[in-house]
């Protein structure tokens, strides 16, 4: 009997053919994402759009109360970019952020390595301490640190005097901008290290220990093992943490406001405090919005640069 053969079909050989179930609807993934996207866009897009619109208006207290809108074009931007205070505050902010990020990454790396090598009870103690520091709301941490550094009643002065580091009994940490910056760096780094440390610890757990053993057998010192083996493997995590840290440490506001209010002599005013002073205190909402837009563009630019580096890495 001659059987009628089906015409040959283009089928991959060596693979069992099974009809693939068609998805219920092509739009389902987007429908599932829609509520979340609507929430994020709703809470972000409206304020950002208002801020951009405000930056082109002259909005002061009288305008706010009488609900008038006066469009002034790029006048706010021109005023900001020619303001000497802005060009003092900007490098100060970037310098502060760079210092904080460097110290955070260093301390975070140290903590992560410690977590990896420590015994179980020590690891538990350290990670609990890190999580507690991380969980403290930012402004509560700032207020507590301010009291710890108080010149009359602070525990830092008391401990330093008792430990014999000198006579710190009425030493005021907030008398000069440099000293105040040192305190601010302590507060910001204290709040930032837990996240970095725990993320890097997670990264360390993914590194095969055989690589370290091989490197040590080859005669590498601890530093070379870290720099040549661990760091390249963790580089993507470092890039992400660096980007996040730069963004967070540039935007820093509660820590500065609750400890120094931008003093002494406006010496610790950074972008966050500057915007607050212009907007909330002086009621120059249009000007403050212009500075905020500029800061956003700066941060987007910085992040873009790092994201590009990351993209090139993964290729």
């Amino acid at each position, binding site marked *: 009997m001659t059987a009628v053969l089906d015409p040959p079909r283009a089928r991959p050989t060596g693979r069992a053919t099974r009809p693939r179930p068609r998805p219920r609807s092509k739009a389902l993934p987007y429908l599932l994402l829609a509520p979340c996207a609507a929430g994020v866009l709703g809470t972000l897009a409206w304020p950002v759009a208002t801020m951009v619109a405000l930056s082109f208006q*002259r909005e*002061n*207290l*009288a305008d*706010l*109360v*009488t*609900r008038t809108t006066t469009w002034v074009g790029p006048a706010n931007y021109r005023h900001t970019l020619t303001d000497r205070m802005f060009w003092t505050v900007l490098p100060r902010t970037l310098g502060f952020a760079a210092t904080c990020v460097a110290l955070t990454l260093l301390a975070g790396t140290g903590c992560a390595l410690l977590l990896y090598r420590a015994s179980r009870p020590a690891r538990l103690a350290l990670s609990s301490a890190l999580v507690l520091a991380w969980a403290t709301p930012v402004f509560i941490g700032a207020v507590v640190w301010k009291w710890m550094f108080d*010149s*009359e009643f602070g525990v830092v002065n008391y401990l330093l005097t008792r430990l014999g580091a000198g006579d710190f009994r*009425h030493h*005021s940490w*907030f*008398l*000069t901008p440099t000293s105040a910056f040192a305190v601010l760096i302590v507060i910001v780094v204290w709040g930032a290290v837990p996240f970095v440390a725990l993320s890097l610890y997670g990264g360390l757990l993914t590194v095969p220990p055989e690589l370290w053993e091989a490197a040590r057998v080859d005669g590498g010192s601890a530093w070379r093992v870290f720099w040549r083996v661990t760091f390249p493997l963790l580089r993507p995590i470092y890039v992400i943490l660096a980007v996040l840290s730069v963004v967070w440490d540039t935007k820093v506001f509660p820590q500065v406001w609750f400890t120094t*209010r931008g*003093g*002494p*002599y*406006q010496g610790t005013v950074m972008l966050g405090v500057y915007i607050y*002073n212009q907007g*909330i*205190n*002086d*009621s120059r909402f249009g000007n403050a919005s212009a500075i905020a837009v500029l800061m956003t563009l700066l941060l987007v630019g910085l992040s873009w640069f790092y994201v590009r580096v990351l993209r090139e890495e993964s290729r």
Partner: protein
Amino acid sequence: MSHRTRAAAAALTLALCTVAACGGGSGGSRGTAQLNVWLMKDSAPDALVADVNRAFTAAHPGTRVKVQILDWTGRDVKWKTALAGDHPPDVMEMGNTDVLSYAASGALADLTHRTFDNRASWLTGLTEAGTYQGKLYGVPYYGGDRVVIYRKDLWQRAGLGAPPSTLADLQRDAAALRDADGRPDFSGLYFPGRYQYAALSFVYDTGGRIATRSKDGRWHGQLSATAAQQGLTNWANFLHAASRAPADKDETGIDDVLGQGHAAMIIAQGWQVKAIGAKYPQLAGQLDAFAMPGTAGPMPVFLGGSNLTASAGGKNRDLAAAWIRLMTGTKYETALGQAGLLPNSTSLSHAVSGITATELRAATRSWFTPASTHWSDVDNASVMQDMLQAIASGQKSVATAAKDADTRVEQILDAGA
């Protein structure tokens, strides 16, 4: 449960939740007018305010008064947010330095043509603080100024007699008190570096001023003038002789310093005497006050105080004006005077006694901050406090600090809208 039953249950739950959420909305007003009054902390005693409200609701049946007490810190943000909203409070107590910028922005109701008691004899300082371009926006509520509060027991122990009448005498007495105690932390008169309202009195004492306005409307800082610099130098010398207070603190917590025995004298408002006595019972009968002496005669005092304002966007403007009239009327101003605040009218000076009378006498020579709508910006930028701190800590000389402060003041006061 089957698929259909589950869907039906979900739909029913959702419907019930929506109904419940909608139900809690508008509470019935039922024809009652509610007057929202915002008062500041530590001003009029609560019992007095309750009396006023009782009298008001009796005189205006169908109204309810809701009082909210605001903290001094962060009051600006609360006012701005409320005034920009749809339901601003009807009556607000504002510090006399606050009224001007809000009046200029159009947020406050014009009260010029309303009737108030004792208008002809209102304290000039408070009336000026509440007037903008000839119109009344803030009705004088009460005044307050600072006196020197001292401990009688420490005074007697140091063998001192009558209160000093010149600054030099006060400096000498403070040194004697410090020596009688002997502790390195003890201040004869505790004077923190950033205490601007007490420190700037020294400038006015020698005939200086903070800033003046020229005919063309521009402000000029006057702190670098000879008279003002002399005043600041007097202040710096006084500080080093009499006080062990830190240069970078302001007057917050000054009552605790006196109460805990770290000082024999402080400069504070008269009502603090009762408050310190209540907080530290062992000092209850040991505190008294005298007017701060200047180089020649009493030192000019900063005339603080509050004004009552009505918001322009409030729904009950007539009721608000009526409430303000009642609160600032003779009866309750007399009660305020007996409670330790300065009444708003010179005709009520008989109502004050004791330390409040000392305060009132000291207020005959008073000063006020420059009448600019941007003065609160200067305050928020801490220009005066920073200058004082720099001088007190020795970081800048008087001349440099005064010059820098003048530049900043002119920058801020002469800035555009």
